């Protein structure tokens, strides 16, 4: 009998847990540890943030799903990994601290044969003074944050209906943020809502981003082939900004936020102040900050985790300049090089480097979008780790399954406004996620499979995916035929 513990129940962790339970015989245990009682389909938080969906439409309780599937559920967060056991344990174990109100504050040591770290990001609002719901800006990272954002946006729209001009700022709150796609979605959803409210002429909408140019999306931009032309995602995105009348500040690092004012620096070293009435700025991410100890109790955190708090896996972490980055740098099995029964998937794994070219201002401020590893790639990684573990339980010498972001494609449906008849979304596909300039000289990606279009059909697709993925996450009949 083997015991698999999954830390985290986001897209990667929940996918891994469901596949493990489906593929492993009942004499093997699958346990999930997550601090949240609810599953959150995060891509739809954008619509919660503009008041078009409620929290209950994007969340559901995890406990009944896990009870039905025979998965052990601990509402807790991982504190430390002991991959060699110790302290009286013959097997590896993970220390957890309960957030479950019934066990609040108590701790436990959960032994495992295999551990999947899918803890997702720590929302590092603290990296920028004044950033976030505890500061002076709102966020859409969680359903409750998005609900607060919708309330504040409604206040701004009410002020405009009174005839007051409003400055709306949407973007990222640090030079090393990721998820620029989410900020892009939110700015155009906000613009759409303000236009629908009939007060567009009273809103100055500003997109504040760490991308050196629009359309970078943290993936070094894309090249789309359309109507016989190759078009950069920069031009494609700028066209949408022009059409919708949204201003932008690119290549920016936010130093601090004060009530109604964002202080930022740009790649050319200039600094600026941006006054606002409503601001949604995403935080940078870091790992869950777990510790690791060997059998003797010595701290081996530096061997297991990168300084960012993300877990080291089978990537090439040798520091090298952008020009020397290769597809092979990216991990494929997501196994820890130190402990092969330890995996990190989704945002929890430490990427070898960015995908976009990292840049510094003349003042030395790093302004470099971090690589996105959410959504479709995250689910694929979770499933891949689960398949490897299932094979290893049957045969300890089994080869690991692989799913490198340099060999997988992704579809991204970025909402640009909600509504069954008047909504739009930017539907984009790319192959591969990480550009491979050796295999695809010039653009780094397959011209046939890297594509983008804007329209209502994209909105219908995102709506369909919302219901499809919530159905899948609820593990309803046939859930596993829905691809990640």
């Amino acid at each position, binding site marked *: 009998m083997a015991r698999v513990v999954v830390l985290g129940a986001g897209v990667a962790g929940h996918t891994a847990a469901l596949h493990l339970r489906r593929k492993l015989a009942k004499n093997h245990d699958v346990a999930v540890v997550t601090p949240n009682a609810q599953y959150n389909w995060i891509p739809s938080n954008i619509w919660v943030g503009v008041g078009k969906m409620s929290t209950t439409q994007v969340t559901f309780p995890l406990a009944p799903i896990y009870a039905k599937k025979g998965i052990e559920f601990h509402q807790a967060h991982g504190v430390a990994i002991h991959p060699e056991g110790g302290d009286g344990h013959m097997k590896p174990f993970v220390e957890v601290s309960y957030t479950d109100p019934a066990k609040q504050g108590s701790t436990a040591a959960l032994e495992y044969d295999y551990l999947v770290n899918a803890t997702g990001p720590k929302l590092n609002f603290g990296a920028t003074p004044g950033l976030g719901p505890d500061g002076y800006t709102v966020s859409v990272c969680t359903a409750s944050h998005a609900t607060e954002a919708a309330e504040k946006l409604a206040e701004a729209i009410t002020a405009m209906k009174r005839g007051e001009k409003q400055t709306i700022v949407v973007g990222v709150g640090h030079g090393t943020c990721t998820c620029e796609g989410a900020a892009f979605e939110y700015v155009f959803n906000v613009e759409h809502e303000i236009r629908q409210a009939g007060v567009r002429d009273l809103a100055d909408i500003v997109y504040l981003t760490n991308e050196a140019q629009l359309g970078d999306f943290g993936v070094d931009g894309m090249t789309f082939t359309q109507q016989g032309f190759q078009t950069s995602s920069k031009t494609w995105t700028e066209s949408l900004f022009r059409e919708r009348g949204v201003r*932008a500040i690119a*290549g920016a690092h936010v130093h601090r936020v004060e009530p109604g004012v964002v202080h930022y620096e740009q*790649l050319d070293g200039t600094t600026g102040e941006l006054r606002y009435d409503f601001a949604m700025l995403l935080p940078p991410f870091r790992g869950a900050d777990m510790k690791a100890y060997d059998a003797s109790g010595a701290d081996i955190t530096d061997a297991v985790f990168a300084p960012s708090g993300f877990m080291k896996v089978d990537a090439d972490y040798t520091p090298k300049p952008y020009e020397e980055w290769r597809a092979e740098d990216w991990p494929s099995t997501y196994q820890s090089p130190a402990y092969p029964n330890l995996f990190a998937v989704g945002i929890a794994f430490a990427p070898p480097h960015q995908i976009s070219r990292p840049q510094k201002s003349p003042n030395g401020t790093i302004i470099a979008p971090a690589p996105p590893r959410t959504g479709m790639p995250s689910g694929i*990684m979770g499933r891949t780790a689960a398949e490897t573990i299932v094979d290893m339980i049957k045969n300890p010498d089994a080869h690991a399954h692989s799913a490198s972001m340099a060999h*997988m*494609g992704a579809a991204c449906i970025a909402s640009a406004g909600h509504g069954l008849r008047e909504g739009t979304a930017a539907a984009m*596909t790319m*192959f591969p996620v990480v550009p491979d300039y050796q295999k695809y000289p010039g653009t780094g990606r397959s011209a046939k*499979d890297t594509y983008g279009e804007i329209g209502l059909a994209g909105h219908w*697709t995102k709506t369909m995916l919302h219901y499809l993925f919530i159905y899948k996450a609820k593990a309803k009949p046939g859930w596993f035929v829905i691809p990640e």
Partner: protein
Amino acid sequence: MTDVNTSIAAAPMPTEKTVKSRTSLPTQMMRFGAINLRMVKIILKGHG
């Protein structure tokens, strides 16, 4: 650095016909099929 807003101002502006086609039901029903076929292709080509 080049001001991004200068670049936005020089970006292609969609014509009224293009903007209307983005919410035209007959056009978008066809595009819905096309987008989903593209996603299926991505899934089949390299989904891990």
